[in-house]
């Protein structure tokens, strides 16, 4: 007789795994989630801005109980140089009306809450257990081995939601080994500040309204780096991530970079006097569309970071994880009706993903990671030029504006009109 303990085994209690578990349990499927952390969220880090839509489709009234920090009413983008910042952004009252677009969250709290919802729906979640490898029989995944005594488990389908370091996709040969240009190492600090101080510094009037700032520019010395500053109720999250290949090439340490960022003259006043509550590190898959793993095989599907589903341009990851988890669950429910869990049957997951915003967005930006690798000037020379030009225009020093503009034009010529035009054209063509 076929061994079977559960209908579905899910590996990893992050947003991808819990979303799949919630959906399956709600449909009456016998589902277990295995998590290696002391509790769901113990190992998980994000900036973190959580976009509501993907979860609202699953739990429409989630805002009533979820541990959310502030809803975001203003999103800013800063170009940093050594001593200056040139910024833009959007604040809109539209973002200040329900349903809100996104929230700042803490993953250790959020994942724990989300897992509790899945438990209430009927899922079983086992913590403190590492899944070591898949059990494969005649080319079909039939279960998993864990680090518990007698810890083998069997099911119709295994869903891998085991994050960026996914052992399962690697063991099954669904992903190529991760190379340093495809991932960013990211660190973050949570810096405690009184609620009123956060409000005043970021220009909001209560602890429910929040602001985000994304940071890039020549300050990061030509490394593909993205920094961020997000407001929480009584703290600020500040962090940055750099492509690992750049760190190796520049012999750079990411904590040193974070300390340097915290000391930047435009950043320091925002966190001044605050007390660091926690420091953390995690990788982000940044390879984009071309780095996505194969999504299924016999008796097996992959979701979230394990499949490398992150849209770095819009710092979307947790919502793509949830969406993919939901679609994998949908696929299982259809396959169960037919009693067919073969690769052919589960290939429906790939089709669903292809038609979802997840793949459409990632496909649109498919050339971006390579372009950032090839065109360093996009992050260094051009922003530096823009910052210098803005300084010249704002600085009233007796030089006539017409002469200033002439000087700026000369600098444009030095950067190379043709190269700039070509870069602009390439950008436009590649993200069209």
């Amino acid at each position: 007789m076929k061994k079977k303990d559960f209908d579905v085994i899910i590996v990893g209690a992050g947003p991808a795994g819990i979303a799949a578990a919630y959906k399956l349990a709600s449909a009456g499927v016998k589902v277990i989630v295995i998590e290696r952390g002391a509790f769901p969220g113990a190992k998980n880090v994000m900036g973190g801005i959580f976009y509501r839509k993907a979860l609202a489709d699953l739990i429409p009234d989630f805002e009533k109980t979820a541990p959310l920090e502030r809803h975001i009413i203003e999103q800013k983008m800063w170009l940093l140089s050594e001593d200056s910042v040139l910024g833009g952004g959007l604040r809109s009252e539209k973002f200040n009306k329900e349903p809100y677009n996104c929230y700042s969250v803490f993953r250790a709290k959020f994942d724990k809450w989300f897992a509790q919802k899945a438990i209430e729906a009927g899922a079983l979640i086992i913590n403190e257990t590492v899944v070591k490898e898949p059990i494969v029989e005649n080319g079909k995944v039939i279960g998993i081995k864990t680090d518990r005594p007698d810890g083998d488990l069997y099911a119709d389908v295994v869903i891998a939601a085991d994050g960026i370091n996914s052992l399962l996709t690697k063991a099954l040969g669904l992903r190529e080994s991760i190379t340093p240009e495809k991932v960013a190492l990211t660190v973050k600090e949570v810096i405690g500040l009184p609620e009123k101080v956060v409000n005043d510094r970021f220009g909001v009037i209560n602890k429910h309204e929040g602001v985000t700032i994304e940071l890039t520019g020549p300050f990061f010395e030509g490394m593909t780096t993205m920094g961020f500053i997000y407001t929480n109720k009584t703290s600020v999250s500040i962090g940055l991530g750099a492509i690992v290949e750049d760190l190796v090439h520049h012999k750079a340490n990411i904590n040193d970079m974070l300390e340097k960022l915290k000391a930047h003259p435009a950043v320091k006043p925002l966190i001044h006097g605050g007390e660091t509550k926690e420091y953390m590190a995690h990788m982000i898959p940044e390879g984009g569309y071309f780095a996505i793993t194969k999504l299924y095989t016999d008796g097996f599907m992959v979701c979230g970071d394990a499949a490398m589903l992150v849209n770095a341009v819009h710092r979307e990851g947790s919502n793509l994880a949830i969406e993919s988890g939901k679609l994998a669950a949908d696929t299982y429910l259809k396959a169960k009706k037919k009693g067919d869990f073969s690769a052919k049957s589960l290939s429906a997951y790939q089709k669903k993903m292809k038609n979802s915003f997840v793949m459409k967005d990632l496909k649109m930006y498919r050339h971006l990671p390579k372009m950032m690798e090839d065109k360093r000037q996009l992050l260094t020379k051009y922003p530096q030029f823009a910052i210098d030009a803005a300084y010249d225009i704002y600085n009233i020093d007796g030089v006539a504006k017409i002469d200033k503009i002439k000087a700026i034009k000369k600098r444009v010529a030095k950067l190379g009109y043709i190269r700039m035009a070509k870069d602009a054209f390439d950008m436009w063509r590649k993200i069209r």
Partner: protein
Amino acid sequence: MRIEDKLYLIGYKVDEDGSHLEVNKKDVCKKCKNKACTFVCPVDVYKYDEKEEKLSINYDACVECGTCKIVCEYIEWRYPRGGFGVAYKFG
């Protein structure tokens, strides 16, 4: 803020039974030019003693990000046993 001081702020359950990180080839570190592990790790787990010609691995501090195994093929990288290792308060 020094990394040592930041480590105090992180919650860990240390597995006294031994390290989940090892270098799997004898003497490779001596010949390794870049020693990427020593500066890439966000919590300074790896330190190379030039005099002793020895790499030390302070596995207690590891936050399990996985970066070291991507920059060096000789690092034998495992997750800590279930329930051990880092447990963030905020994340």
